[in-house]
C-alpha cells in the first residue's frame, strides 16, 4: 500500500515536470539557423526615433535573381514587434522602416515608393534585435543560383529626426563579414555563411 502511494506520488511528480518542460518548449523563441541568417543586435523606435534598414541585392555572381527575405524585429522580451517577408530583385534595394504607428513624418502617406516597407508598432518606446532569415527552404542548396540572405548587403540606422542625427546599426552575417570556405580536395567554393 505504501509502495503504491509512493509510486503514485512519483508518477504525479513526473507528470508535473513533463508539463513544465513542455510549457518551456512551447514558449521558447524559435531558433534561427546560424549559417543561413543575419542578425542585428539592436533597433529602437518611439514617438520620434525610428530605425531604418536597407536591404540590397548587389547581383554578385552566384546569387539568384530574386531572394526572399523574412525580417523579424523582436522586442526586449523576445516577442515579435513586427515581421515581414519580401523579395529583393537583382540590383534592387528594399527600404524597411521600424516606426511607431502614425509617426508624423514616416507613415503610409509619406513613404509610398515601391520597395519601401513600413513596420509600424506601438508609439511607446520599443527596442530589441532583428533577425533576417531566408524564405527559401534550401537557400544554400547545390544549385548555382543561391537564394541566400547572407549574400545580400544590409545597412541601417537608428534615426533621430529632431536633430537629423542617428546611430549606425550593425548587421552580423551578411556579405560584409561572411566567410568563404574551400572544401578539401573537391575544389568547390561553398557559399557565404551567416552568423558563426
Amino acid at each position, binding site marked *: 500500500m505504501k509502495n503504491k502511494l509512493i509510486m503514485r506520488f512519483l508518477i504525479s511528480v513526473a507528470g508535473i515536470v513533463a508539463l513544465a518542460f513542455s510549457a518551456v518548449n512551447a514558449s521558447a523563441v524559435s531558433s534561427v539557423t546560424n549559417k543561413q541568417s543575419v542578425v542585428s543586435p*539592436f533597433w529602437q523606435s518611439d514617438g520620434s526615433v525610428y530605425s531604418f534598414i536597407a536591404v540590397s541585392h548587389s547581383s554578385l555572381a552566384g546569387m539568384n535573381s530574386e531572394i526572399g527575405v523574412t525580417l523579424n524585429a523582436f522586442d526586449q522580451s*523576445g516577442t515579435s514587434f513586427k515581421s515581414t517577408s519580401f523579395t529583393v530583385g537583382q540590383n534592387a534595394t528594399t527600404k524597411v522602416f521600424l516606426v511607431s504607428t502614425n509617426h508624423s513624418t514616416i507613415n503610409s502617406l509619406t513613404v509610398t515608393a515601391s520597395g519601401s516597407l513600413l513596420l509600424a508598432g506601438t508609439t511607446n518606446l520599443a527596442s530589441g*534585435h532583428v533577425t533576417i532569415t531566408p524564405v527559401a527552404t534550401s537557400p544554400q542548396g547545390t544549385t548555382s543560383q543561391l537564394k541566400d540572405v547572407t549574400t545580400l548587403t544590409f545597412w541601417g540606422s537608428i534615426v533621430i529626426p529632431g536633430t537629423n542625427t542617428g546611430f549606425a546599426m550593425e548587421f552580423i*552575417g551578411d556579405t560584409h563579414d561572411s566567410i568563404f570556405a574551400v572544401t578539401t580536395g573537391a575544389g568547390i567554393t561553398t557559399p557565404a555563411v551567416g*552568423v*558563426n
Partner: protein
Amino acid sequence: MNKTRIIVMTILLAFAVVFSAQNAMAVDKSRTALSPYFQSDTGSTYSFMGIAHPSLLSAASTVGLTVSTVGQAGVVGSTAFTIAAGETYRVFIVSTNHSTINSKAITGAKVLFLSLTTSSTSGSVLFTASKTEPATKSAAAGGVSDGFQGLNQLAIWGAVVIPGTSSGFAMEFIGDSHDSNAVNLVFDGGSGQISVPIASGRGID
C-alpha cells in the same frame, strides 16, 4: 642550513603568490568579449549597450554573463545577469544622478545601470561568460535547451551618446557573434587544397 632552507622556501612562496595573483588577473579569452572604450561624463555623455540573444540554432536558450567597466584603476563597476533566447538587455554606463538617464526615468526588467562616479570616467568594457568552458556544448537541463553558452552566441551593439546634440559615436565589440569565427585551417598535401571548417566559435580569436 635551516635558515637557508627557510629563506629559499619563503622566496619560492612569494613567487608562487605573485604568479598566482597575476594568473587571477588574466582574462580567459574563450570566455571574454570586450569593448575597447566607453565614456561617462558628469550629467552629460554616457555609454549605451544593447545585448541580444538572437536565438541562434547553436546557442543554449540562456547565456549568463557579467559586464564590467574597467577604468584606469581597474574594475569600477559590474553587473551579472542571464539573457534568454530572443531577449535584449539595455545597459547604461552613466554618471550617478544623471538628469535623464537614471533608474527613475528608464525602467524595465531588462534595463541595467552601471552608475559610476559623478566625475568623468572612461576605459574599456569586459564581458565574461558565466560558463567556464564555453567551447563545450551544454546538455539540456532544467528547462534550458542544449547549445553553446559562450558570448559568441550573443550580439552586442552600443554607442557613446552625447545627449545635448542627440549624437554620438559607435562602440566596438570584440568577441561577440560578429567576429568570433574559429577557423581551422587544414592543409591537404595531396591535393594542395586548404579546408576551412567553421567551428563553433570561441570568444576572441
